[in-house]
């Protein structure tokens, strides 16, 4: 089935079996192997990508349903692999094996946007008040991304550092 996807700003016309998930289309057809297949059932978050700016599990979505959508994978977060979040993950040791990292990065990118839009979470004391990104808020909002190496302290520090000062100096990654 003919499907048009714009991935990281580039248009692609694909002919897909209806069963192909968005994750498999990205990895197998477009060779964008940054997005990872962990559980393939929406439980681990390694496949997280942004679709029209919102984070989703690419493994639980059919590629043919995304005709015309704009998709951002980890490869598209920056041109040089050093977006503020990427640099902060390096600086704060936000990974060990790195398998979950692309999903963590895409998810965290969306979390910062959701906070900016004032979306509350399960642990927000006040549904209507401004959201402050505490460690507890972050743990709740990132609960759809699992790290089997358990690098959560580093992941938290990295995301919080970006949330706090908006940008992280590029040198930090070096």
């Amino acid at each position, binding site marked *: 089935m003919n499907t048009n996807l714009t991935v990281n700003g580039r248009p692609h016309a694909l002919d897909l079996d209806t069963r192909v*998930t968005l994750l498999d289309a990205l990895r197998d057809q477009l060779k964008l192997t940054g997005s990872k297949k962990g559980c393939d059932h929406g439980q681990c978050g390694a496949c997280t990508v942004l679709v029209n700016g919102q984070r989703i*599990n690419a493994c639980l*979505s059919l590629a043919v*349903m995304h005709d015309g959508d704009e998709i951002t994978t980890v490869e598209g977060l920056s041109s040089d692999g050093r977006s503020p979040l990427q640099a902060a993950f390096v600086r704060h040791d936000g990974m060990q094996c790195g398998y979950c990292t692309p999903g963590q990065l895409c998810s965290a990118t969306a979390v910062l946007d959701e906070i900016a839009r004032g*979306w*509350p*979470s399960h642990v927000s004391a006040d549904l209507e008040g401004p959201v402050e990104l505490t460690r507890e808020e972050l743990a709740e909002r990132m*609960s759809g991304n699992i790290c089997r190496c358990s690098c959560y302290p580093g992941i938290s520090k990295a995301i919080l550092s970006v949330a706090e000062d908006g940008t992280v100096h590029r040198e930090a990654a070096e």
Partner: protein
Amino acid sequence: MKPFDYTRADDLQTAQRALHEGGTVIAGGTNLIDLMKLEVMTPGAVVDISRLDLNDIRDHDGGLYIGAMVTNSDLAADLRVRRDYPVLSRALLAGASGQLRNKATTGGNLLQRTRCPYFYDRDTSCNKRTPGSGCAAIGGELRNHAILGTSDDCVALHPSDMAVALRVLDAQVEIESLDGTRHLRPLDDFYRLPGTTPHIETSLEPGDIITAVVLPKPTGGQQSYRKIRDRASYAFALVSIASVINARDGKIENIALAFGGIGARPWRDTRVEDMMRGQTVDDQLIQKAGDLLLSDARLLEGLEFKADLVHRLLSSTLTEAVQ
């Protein structure tokens, strides 16, 4: 995954005709695709309704009209819901993960299937998956299972948090039939109890489609959603309570309670509410309410703990409401 034909519906009628012919609708797909991968569900035709114009939330008769394709994220973040129906925001935010809530829809959440592990495991018998094959859960390992509304053929639990909040708010489901007529149906008429036909989960007829959920005028009162689960986030409820309570001087003036994690459908028992109305909240009343709620409960081995959790959650909910 078994092969299937995919079509994108441009209007409701196309979707309804496909449904009438035995097709399956897909919206967010977060539950359906999972089940298709496991071949627990093997639809031959899948109709995509995710782009139908059913995704707005609008004021309606003093209440709210929530389109069936509104995502769980958008519904939880809606300022009117946060202000007037906080129990609904809270229930939504207590469910799933950020990624899933961005895809999951209001209609799809209502129609999600049970997470009973035997339903998911094709090597075991399940009357819901294969009618007449038996129930491996009864006599098996029980934890995420129901204690109310069950039958000898099925002890599956309805897993939704959202639907529990909708039940306490007296929400109604708007359904469009194949002939184009629309009507509202209360949740207790929407969900069927398993009885001897656990594979028939709702009262939807072939060709029926959920177009919206309608919330009545806000009633005020103190609203809360409390959920006990095996981990702090991203897990289904072992027991949950959605509550709307008006109390004065320690006395309950009005109360509505709905429960998750215990029922074959989102559970509400108005006998319990009637008994508590006008009463002063104390340990005795809380015990009596829990006992009445659970008077028909079937506590199979492995599920006894749910009775304790119900009592404790009732206690914290009622104690806080009168403080």
